[in-house]
């Protein structure tokens, strides 16, 4: 009796294990942003397309925090989805491993000349086998880091926003309105977060420095040069003078946002997400917030792209068609991906950018003290694209993803480490990654 009972239990279990469903569908992942309108529009588009073409699709949506783990596991295990929309991490990694389908023909079909040139650089990745550059993805939108400015505080201090503000002006103004501990001048995130990476890099770029110059094993030597040292020293000074709030070293990605929303800082460089959120929550600070770009450097926080994984010719064709279908509707794209997001994302098409500029002149986007599309003029880097190499690399993506830079830089503030030493450490670590990835 005992044997029988256990055997039955065991076989029931085995059957349950092997029970799987092998439905063949086009798997579409949408990495969500915090803007509902973007996510919902994309999903509707995918559904419409599926209905029109009679294709079964499996749509999955999840936020970027979960998405990164997922895409890594999917690539590593060889079970990637067919199409990814708004995916940031993974596009370069997958392309460098030869896992993605080039989308050059889709870009031509959409009108190559209508794209902002800088934008196409985001996803123009060198094929490791042929050495040719192809666009393995289409960036979903431009996601420039703006500087949020408390104009009420500026007014009190008698400062005006110049036509083309730059870093020097920003730092001067931040010092002028600095009134700790009530209000700190500059909300410069320094914790272990992406915002810190972008803020530090923006300043280094503005000083004329760089991150990766080439794919050689000394490609990151450029990081260990005077501009980096100067930038790090400047941050240290501002931190010691309490222009940067002392708690900035423990901010995570929403640290500076909350500080701004609570009125504790006068300036901070971030995505437009702060403004978007304040309007949504009815925060009174939204009324005294203006957004500007610094003319020295604009960093794209994203690289959220659409890309298609290699699979069968049929599925690849479908995947490409889906992406074409989404971007073809340029009008709908502008309204839902950009305008509905309060311009947190700017259009990748010049034709739509012109409309945005026109709307700004007509006063539709009062939070911008400058023409929002002027961001395209100073774009320097994005998630995986570093300067001066000007092309995305999986090494830059790893540097960003692992938060190497903020992780090391923090020692300047907590242990009084020498900025030069820190810069060297970072450059060495990146050089090692370069050698690992691209050989000697």
């Amino acid at each position: 009796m005992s044997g029988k009972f256990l055997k039955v239990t065991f076989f029931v279990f085995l059957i349950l294990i092997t029970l799987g469903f092998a439905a063949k569908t086009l798997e579409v992942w949408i990495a969500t942003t915090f803007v509902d309108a973007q996510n919902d529009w994309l999903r509707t588009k995918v559904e419409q397309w599926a209905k029109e073409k009679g294709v079964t699709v499996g749509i999955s949506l999840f936020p970027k925090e979960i998405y990164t783990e997922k895409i890594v596991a999917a690539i590593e295990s060889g079970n990637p989805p067919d199409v990814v929309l708004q995916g940031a991490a993974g596009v370069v990694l997958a392309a460098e491993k030869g896992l993605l389908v080039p989308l050059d023909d889709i870009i031509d079909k959409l009108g190559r000349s209508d794209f902002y040139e800088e934008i196409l650089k985001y996803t123009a990745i060198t094929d490791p086998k042929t050495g040719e550059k192809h666009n393995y993805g289409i960036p979903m939108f431009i996601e420039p880091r703006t500087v949020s400015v408390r104009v009420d505080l500026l007014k009190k201090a008698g400062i005006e926003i110049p036509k083309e503000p730059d870093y020097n002006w920003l730092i001067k103004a931040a010092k002028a309105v600095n009134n700790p501990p009530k209000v700190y001048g500059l909300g410069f995130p320094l914790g272990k977060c992406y915002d810190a990476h972008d803020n530090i890099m923006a300043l280094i770029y503005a000083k004329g420095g760089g991150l990766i110059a080439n794919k050689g094993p000394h490609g990151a030597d450029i990081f260990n040069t005077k501009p980096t040292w100067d930038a790090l020293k400047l941050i240290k000074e501002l931190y010691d003078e309490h222009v940067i709030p002392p708690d900035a070293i423990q901010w995570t990605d929403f640290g500076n946002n909350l500080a701004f929303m609570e009125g504790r800082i006068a300036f901070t460089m971030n995505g437009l997400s702060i403004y978007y959120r304040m309007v949504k929550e009815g925060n009174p600070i939204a009324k005294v917030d203006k957004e500007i770009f610094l003319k020295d450097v604009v960093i794209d926080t994203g690289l959220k792209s659409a890309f298609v994984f290699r699979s069968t010719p049929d599925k690849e064709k479908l995947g490409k068609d889906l992406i074409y279908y989404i971007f073809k509707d340029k009008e709908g794209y502008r309204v839902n991906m950009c305008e509905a997001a309060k311009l947190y994302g700017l259009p990748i098409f010049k034709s739509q950018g012109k409309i945005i500029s026109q709307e700004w002149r007509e006063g539709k986007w009062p939070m911008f003290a400058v023409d929002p599309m002027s961001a395209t003029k100073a774009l320097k880097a994005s998630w995986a694209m570093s300067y001066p190499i000007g092309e995305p690399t999986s090494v830059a993506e790893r540097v960003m993803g692992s938060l190497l830079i903020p992780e090391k830089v923090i020692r300047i503030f907590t242990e009084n480490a020498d900025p030069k030493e820190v810069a060297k450490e970072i450059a060495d670590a990146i050089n090692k990654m370069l050698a690992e990835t691209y050989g000697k």
Partner: protein
Amino acid sequence: MKLSLTWRIVSIIVIVGLSIFVALPLYWTFTIAFRPNMDLFTRRIIPSKFTLQNIKDVLLSNNWGGFESVPFFVPLLNSLLVASSVTVMSLAISIFAGYGLARVKMQGGQFFESFILFSYVFPPFIIVIALYNFLHRIHLYNSLFGLMLLHLIIVVPYSTWTLRGYFLTIPQDIEDAALVDGLSRVGTLLRIVLPSATPGIASTAIFSFTLSWSELLFAMTIIDSYEKFTLPIALRTMVIGDFVNWGNLMAGVVISMLPPMLFYLALQRYVVSGLTAGAVK
């Protein structure tokens, strides 16, 4: 022994101190969940007023995660489904294994015990990619059943180990009598042992439930579609990079901590005798 005055004073200090220690984070969690969001910007400790708005927002809106999805009920129900199925499945095999290890003399028994103990404490993140692969192979990726399977590797070693310990604490005489009377081992287990092992089984069940209920890493890697989200992923989704709506988030926290808490408190009598007798023996 009569309680001395010093002892009483020390006792009171310990109790009050620990109670406050436990209360601090809980106080915030509950008050933030039930107060208006704007309160937090004014440095108030005492809520300005009581509101169910956050709970309502979370439970009824389809938009707790930053995109139109499903009501929060769905992850709640998924979690209930997964955790209770895992508990039942795991008990079904661990009762036998636990009893076998405690009572049946088998060669290499100690090896099996060590093996199960090893699995019990093995940190699962080490093998998460391998498991991800495996689930794809057997077509259980992005399915709640696949998730249950992975949860079993966390829950089964625990419950086998605890039940083994618990069975060891039950006096053997009655079982021996039953065996002499001609009842088989399985018969003895089902008719004689199980009824008297209720506290042990109940507490094992509760803890198994909690283990599955709290599991984040596996769920995060193998579940894709939001209609299959469990609570941990749902809450992870609510901490969206840039922003946290503390009111909604804490409402989510309150919702997700209530079921296990209520289970524990309702079956407290069993828990103390069962959980520890098992784990400690």
